[in-house]
């Protein structure tokens, strides 16, 4: 089976600014692949090039076996896109949004109607079918946007921050829908700020920063290679010191101190034995968030 996406030395520049700086990507058919990164990392620019709505400045990009620069129409006919902004048509009802979008893929009215009904059911919006889209909640709008991306039964679905701004229930429901797609063998490429989302959904991922890929692998591989197995979060004003040969790494934040160690309980005992009296201590397993922060830093990016 052809790989879903192959990019080599892919570059996107806007004037003097380089948004994507020579990345390589290999996304296999059927997998869920995530692109993580802080704001301005180049995630959305990469997605837009793969969606063939933005032309690469240089490098090569093949999507579903077609050249992205010259065969955009063929690629888009097999692609589903969930953009950051829903951009739903507020003049149309929920069902009409799906019907109208289906027609752009060359479906007959009968096909479009059948597919729209199916997707309304999938997105749990059947009872809202005749409402205008501005009457929907944020979660419903997002589900409709995902349903809209599926009208053409795509081979590859691009999801740009699909759950940003949703409440936990709406996120869980969306995740269920995305799992369902994965079970059907649909290749998914998503960008997200949420590390738990990437850990939950992605088979493999890359972390981007400043337009480059700074790490790649499965969530487990990245956690294993970039951070320790456990993290201890201490609330304390004490200065924490550890033996140089203890294997414990210390990161001092404003009101917290983090201990990175393979055995969190032993690390906590170690610092207590050296006089630390934290007001609270939480031992947890390392997450992608630790990997992400280690690789991209803690500086706030607007």
């Amino acid at each position, binding site marked *: 089976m052809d790989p879903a996406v192959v990019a080599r030395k892919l570059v996107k520049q*806007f004037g003097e600014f380089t948004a994507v700086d020579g990345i390589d990507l290999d996304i296999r058919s059927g997998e869920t692949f995530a692109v993580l990164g802080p704001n301005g990392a180049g995630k959305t620019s990469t997605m837009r090039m793969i*969606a*063939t*709505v*933005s*032309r690469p400045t240089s490098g090569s990009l093949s999507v579903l076996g077609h050249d992205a620069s010259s065969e*955009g*129409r063929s690629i*888009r*006919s097999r*692609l589903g*896109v969930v*953009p950051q*902004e829903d*951009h739903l*048509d*507020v*003049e*149309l009802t929920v069902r*009409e949004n799906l*019907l*109208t*979008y289906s*027609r*752009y*893929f*060359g479906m007959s009215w009968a096909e479009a109607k059948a597919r729209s009904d199916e997707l309304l059911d999938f997105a749990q919006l059947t009872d809202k079918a005749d409402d205008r889209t501005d009457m929907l909640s944020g979660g419903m709008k997002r589900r409709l946007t995902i349903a*809209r991306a599926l009208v*053409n039964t795509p081979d590859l679905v691009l999801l740009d921050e699909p759950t940003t701004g949703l409440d936990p229930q709406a996120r869980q429901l969306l995740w269920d829908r995305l799992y369902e797609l994965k079970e059907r063998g649909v290749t998914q490429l998503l960008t997200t700020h949420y590390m738990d989302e990437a850990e939950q959904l992605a088979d493999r991922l890359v972390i981007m920063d400043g337009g480059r890929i700074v790490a790649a692998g499965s969530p487990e591989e990245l956690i294993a290679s970039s951070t320790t197995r456990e993290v201890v979060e201490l609330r304390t004003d004490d200065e924490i010191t550890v033996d140089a040969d203890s294997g414990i790494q210390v990161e001092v934040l404003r009101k917290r101190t983090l201990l990175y160690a393979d055995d969190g309980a032993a690390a906590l005992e170690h610092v207590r034995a050296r006089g630390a009296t934290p007001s609270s201590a939480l031992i947890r397993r390392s997450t992608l968030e630790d990997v992400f922060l280690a690789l991209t830093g803690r500086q706030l990016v607007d």
Partner: protein
Amino acid sequence: MTALTLHPTSLWHVVEHHIRRTRRSWAGLLLSGVLNPIFTMLALGVGIGSQIDDTSSLGTNGYLEFVGPGVLAGSAFLQGGFTALWPTMSQLRWEGAYQNVVRTPCSAAEVLTGHLLWIALRLTFSSSLFLVVLLIGIGWESSFALLVPFIAALTAVSVAAPICAFTARRETDRGFALIARMVVTPLFVLSGTFTNVESFPAAVQAVIKFFPAFHGIELTRMFVNGTSEIGAALGHLAVLAVWIVAGWFAAVLGFQKALTP
């Protein structure tokens, strides 16, 4: 410039999308696109026209014969110009419907062309209704009158295309009011809609004749009143065609930049 192949089915899907959207706003469109111009024409043509005894300097039998075709084509120009400003910006950026359309097989060039075809279709329809009322008022003079709705559509597109090119290059609607008030509306008023441009100073006439409104209005007047001269008609058509083609090229580039940078 990329992807200049235009697939007729994609163009139709853009038009069809607008038809579906209009199902909820048709009353407003009918009011602004048909009834307003008709009332304007009747108020001027019948109301003010009744006070004008001699219209020989206008080249028509009565003022309604002069102002009716003027308002018909002038309104098409006005609607084409206005549709190319805020409603187009809304589709491109605010509501962003077109941002989604280019994620389907439809290209930015097809979105723009479908957008202009929709404007043309809408103006063909509303001008047909206007024409029926006008012909009831002044009587049937020429079979060329049947072409008038298409001339109105061309007049609308001749202004819509270049303004779409402008709109697509804007991030906000700053400058739109200026274009509407200082370009579109004055051209509607001064391009021979209500009075003969020959009475204006030569420099003003030259400016007016540079823009497409005058040519759409003159063609419409010829066809309605049965005073067509083939050479003059072809000349007016050529000016409209130049504005449409040049505007379309510029707008394709603008839409590509806005939708598929």
